[in-house]
């Protein structure tokens, strides 16, 4: 294909339009990311970063049990949160899609995700009010005579999980609802005509058809949950640390950039693995 001068002039114009965004992303995202990847292979001595290439940081990650433990904690908490959130959100999405009259559905959905739009910090603080020793839940339980001593809800893994589940129930309700309303009622009618019971219809027809929505939500849950620092920091207490907390610790107290960078890349590798695992369903959603 020959390029005429006119086309060349047009193309130059197009570059002019695209360039600011490309330059910005390269300068403030791609380059910093590459630099961080390089740093993760360097070391620190005497408080300064030294550019000698080594895999020490990664070796330390797999060698030091408290670092590896942080990743395992993160994976555990994320898995628990993802499963509970799906189990809670699915019925809610179903009720909004099937039982709420059409004209109220949009409102019902907006209400279901309204607190989604508070910042992480404020949301976690609100849960602290609810879950702390003198908080609403404990005072109610004691007042009702169900427990004698306040339960350890905040400053524990329970606190972290509740805080996370709250956020992700909203997110998953949204993705599953979006999937449910797309389903044609004909599927259910056909299944009923063929003699399937309500439960059979759900298990063999509705559930497989909504799997893409569940997987998209589960993937988002995984990514956002495993990378979050605020929720565990405010609600989780000091007994166990999650990976983002450990990363922030490297930055704060020890100013160990190489180690923080290496841990971040481990975090990113885990997310990439999750993406590869979910890619099949994520693609289906796009069509």
């Amino acid at each position: 294909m020959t390029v005429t001068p006119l086309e060349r002039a047009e193309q130059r114009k197009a570059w002019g339009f695209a360039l600011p965004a490309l330059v910005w992303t390269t300068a403030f995202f791609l380059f910093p990311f590459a630099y961080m990847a390089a740093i993760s292979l360097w070391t620190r001595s005497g408080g300064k970063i030294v550019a000698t290439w080594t895999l020490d940081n990664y070796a330390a990650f797999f060698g030091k049990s408290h670092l590896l433990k942080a990743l395992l904690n993160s994976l555990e908490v994320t898995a628990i949160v993802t499963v509970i959130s799906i189990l809670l959100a699915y019925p809610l999405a179903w009720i909004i899609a099937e039982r709420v009259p059409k004209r109220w559905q949009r409102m019902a959905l907006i209400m279901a995700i309204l607190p989604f739009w508070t910042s992480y910090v404020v949301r976690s603080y609100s849960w602290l009010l609810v879950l702390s020793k003198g908080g609403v839940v404990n005072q109610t339980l004691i007042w009702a005579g169900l427990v004698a001593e306040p339960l350890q809800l905040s400053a524990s893994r329970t606190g972290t999980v509740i805080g996370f589940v709250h956020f992700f129930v909203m997110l998953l309700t949204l993705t599953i609802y979006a999937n449910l309303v797309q389903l044609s009622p004909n599927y259910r009618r056909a299944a009923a005509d063929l003699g399937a019971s309500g439960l059979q219809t759900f298990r063999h027809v509705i559930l497989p058809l909504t799997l893409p929505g569940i997987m998209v939500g589960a993937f988002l849950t995984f990514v956002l949950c495993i990378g979050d620092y605020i929720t565990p920091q405010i609600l989780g207490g000091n007994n166990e640390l999650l990976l983002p907390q450990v990363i922030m610790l490297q930055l704060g107290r020890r100013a160990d950039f190489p180690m923080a960078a290496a841990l971040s890349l481990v975090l990113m590798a885990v997310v990439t693995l999750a993406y590869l695992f979910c890619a099949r369903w994520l693609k289906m959603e796009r069509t």
Partner: protein
Amino acid sequence: MPRQLQTAFAILYAGVLYGFIFLPVVVLVLFSFQDGTLPVPPLHGLTLHWYGEIFADRKLMAALGNSLLVAVISSAVACLLGFLAAYAFARYRLPASNLQRALIVAPMTVSTLIIALGLLSVFSRLDIQLSLWTVGAGHVVINLPLCFAIIYASMGAHQINIERAARDLGARDWQVMLLVTAPMLMPSILAAFFLSVTFSWDEFIIAFLLSRFDVTLPVEIWSMLRSGLDPKTNAIGSVVFLMSVVLLFMLELIVLRKSGKPS
């Protein structure tokens, strides 16, 4: 199960879950009016004292102003860059455009902690002082993919003919873009803008790692948390929540107007 029982069960379930979803927000707002120093039950009485406190708090108000400033400016920049790039990719053929588009949306797939850490290492290496500008630069990075994706998705083929007509009538390139394309895409540009403002307004990690003396509101609230439970934190938290909801409803109104269906 008989249908009525099913409905009763559905109402019960939805009620419990809505209760769970709203519990922390209700507690937050309710105890921001607490007439006492602890924002936990029992509720001693209602007062606006704590709201007076926060509006008299110079540091807090400065942080609120900073947050608005960073949110509006970084979102405007993200929208502008996103719009220009969307225009380039929708209206012209560029080599390797798939790869370039992938580069622009890439930050969306990476956690903000990693983006913040990368920027922090580069800034400290180049001896760039951390300030609201560095926070803003980071917020543009996370909002640009969003703005680009929203605006690019709304640039359909049907607008091309109108742009051509404008060009035939003698409009220059910048006139076409500014007076024809941008107004046609205004709903999605505004949607992208308000969504960006919401994200930037609420963002913590980048704002925390990339700021020094002047901080944004979430960072200031974070430092207030060190003093434990405090009705003052409730009050400012309620204000933050209210502003997010206002932004959300503005977005909803604009999106509704675009799709043109009352629901």
